């Protein structure tokens, strides 16, 4: 029974209901969580993102092959289907996880080699198989992979291979780590800027507010992608992938903080005249303490919602930038870098699976949007 329905009920009837007692005693965090749970799409998206985070953390283990793995024998090979049994083998029906190997055919005219699954050639696949060695979290040396061919030299390319003969699935797992973390780290950086300027602007008001708001409007007036491109163009081309990653993230954040600053400012402006702020001020609290100890926590759930809603923009920007060749560059691998492979239509027409990383972008962006929407609706559990 929700709070709304119970409004017209007699007081004694209300106290008799244990659910209502629980509701009145619940902390704000619990109330937010209950409200969030009702938003089914947001809940599913949150689970999806949680799985993604696990994949990011364990990406060397989850990916069947390492990010430098290159099999020049199988370039632009078709995706394989994971099968549980086959009947084509020499002894009829045989149980066991496997994929079909490849046969290559060369077009006599265009000399292009195409690889197609060959049911005769069976590649056994298993869980926790030995594969390339790696260090989990950069510390623990391991050689087991979640899923892979039982013989390390056999081809198992569930999503096909790239034009370079890299496993698309493994590359995508590594790309997820890069692209999603650019979004998350970038938003955190933007948030730092946004919260400082937004808080100062909204809390003090007056001419300070005016100046900050004008600056924000100026930044917003410039189309963001050309601005990003212009800043990224200044990076030297011999820069290491890790330095480039951090600088690109910073550039994205430098342009994107304005929206968050506005959100934060609006909240501060609305709370400025509340009694608890005045009493804190009369108690002799410093401005910084009032801003970040008293006011900020009262709308933290709104901020989390705003953060979650600004991650998609960041991810889309990085993808577009990298796809245009101005963002991250190989050997760094992100969704945008992967999709570069698909941008020649002569390649794309024969290998539509190269677009799969794009599906990944859409799903992750949608998930962040839904979680953000759900959080925004749940952020104010007392509102009805």
């Amino acid at each position, binding site marked *: 029974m929700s709070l709304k329905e119970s409004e017209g009920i007699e007081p004694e009837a209300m106290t008799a209901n244990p659910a209502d007692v629980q509701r009145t005693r619940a902390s704000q965090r619990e109330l937010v969580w209950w409200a969030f749970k009702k938003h089914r799409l947001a809940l599913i998206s949150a689970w999806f993102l949680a799985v993604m985070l696990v994949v990011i953390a364990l990406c060397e283990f989850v990916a069947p092959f390492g990010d430098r793995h290159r099999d020049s024998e199988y370039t632009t090979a078709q995706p394989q289907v994971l099968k549980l049994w086959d009947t084509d083998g020499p002894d009829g029906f045989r149980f066991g996880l496997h994929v079909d190997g490849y046969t290559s055919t060369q077009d006599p005219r265009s000399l292009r080699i195409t690889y197609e699954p060959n049911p005769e050639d069976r590649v056994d696949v298993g869980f926790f198989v030995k594969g390339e060695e790696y260090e989990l979290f950069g510390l623990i040396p391991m050689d087991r992979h979640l899923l892979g061919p039982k013989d390390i030299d056999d081809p198992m390319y569930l999503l096909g291979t790239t034009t370079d003969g890299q496993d698309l699935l493994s590359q995508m797992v590594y790309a997820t780590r890069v692209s999603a973390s650019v979004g998350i780290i970038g938003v955190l950086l933007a948030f730092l800027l946004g919260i400082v300027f937004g808080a100062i602007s909204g809390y003090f008001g007056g001419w300070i507010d005016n100046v900050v708001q*004008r600056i924000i*409007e*100026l930044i917003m*007036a*410039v*189309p*963001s*992608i*050309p*601005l990003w*491109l*212009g*800043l*990224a*163009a*200044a990076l*030297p081309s011999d820069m290491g992938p890790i330095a480039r990653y951090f600088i690109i993230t910073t550039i994205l954040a430098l342009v994107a903080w304005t929206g968050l600053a506005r959100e934060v400012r609006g909240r501060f402006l609305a709370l400025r005249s509340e009694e608890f702020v005045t009493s804190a001020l009369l108690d002799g609290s410093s401005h910084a303490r009032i801003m970040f100890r008293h006011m900020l926590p009262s709308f933290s759930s709104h901020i989390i919602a705003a953060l979650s809603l600004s991650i*998609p923009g960041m991810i*889309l920007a990085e*993808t*577009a930038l990298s*796809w*245009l*060749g*101005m963002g991250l560059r190989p050997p760094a691998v992100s969704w945008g870098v992967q*999709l570069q492979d*698909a*941008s020649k*239509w002569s390649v*794309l*027409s024969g290998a*539509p699976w190269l*677009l799969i990383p*794009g599906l990944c*972008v*859409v799903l992750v*962006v*949608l998930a962040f*949007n839904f979680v953000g929407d759900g959080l925004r609706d749940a952020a104010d559990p007392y509102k009805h």
Partner: protein
Amino acid sequence: MVRYLGRRVLYMAATLLAISLMVFVIINLPPGDYVTALTAKYNVMGQGLTESDIVNLRHRYGLDGNLLQQYWHWITQIVLHGDLGMSFEHEKPVAEVIGPRLGATIGVSFITLLVTWGLAFPIGVYSAVKQHSLGDYAVTTIGFLGLATPNFLIALVFIYFSVTWFGSVPSGLCSPEWCDAAWNLGKLLDLLGHLWIPMLVIGTAGVAGLVRIIRNNLLDELQRPYVTAARARGVPEKALLRRYPLRVALNPFVSTIGWVLPLLLVGDIVVGQILSLPTLGPILLGSLKSQDMYLAGSVIMVLSVVTVIGTLISDLLLGWLDPRIRLGHQR
């Protein structure tokens, strides 16, 4: 209204100044300038430049003196002579490189804007009036997808289907046989045949965003007491919708020129790249890659200025349409 106009124009001037500063920074970010690039090029060709040549060149392009003086030289050249500098890669003045493409860019963007409006308005209104209907859910879902898909991905998907079904990709704005022909029906049809893919790709995000805004605005408006009051007096539903809430819900059309326009221009960078349109997008990308900074900076500036002017027009239209905005500033 005059005061409102004055404020907006003054504000636009400040924005333009800030944009010019920013573009100047972008031009100067990569190491080296136009003359160092030129010197390197002559060295490769075996004709070394003497010290005095270099000094003269620097003076000619206003590259001697400190950054402030350089900025002053650069901006006065632009404002007074329309001289945007030299393109290193094309070996032509930047204005000559950009000029012919600017028209195509604005043309494609404008047509796309019209189509975006034409699509977004009926869809948004339908979706709000028939809230919770099957059509509304379909629209909302497609809208979410449209906003979540990078537009180059949409372009790639289009290209894939275009190649597998028709065997080719319509690139450019006209087929070879029509490009030099005089304007007639055949050329127009040919242009439309080429334009629909860029329009669809560039416009998707705009349509999705606009539909969402119109739907939300109209839903808010439909819950207002005045709507209930009008209903209670027996105003027919259609007339009621047309006379009041729709007029208020129209505001976002005008106010979004400010953000739809940059979106369209950005879409052009991406789509122009794939479909090789004769627009500014591919030029910008090429110049950034070769660090041809006068050209790149100028394209960024032109795109920004177009956006700022678009925003000004939308502000003025909005002030003219909606007295609440026009008078709100005077208080």
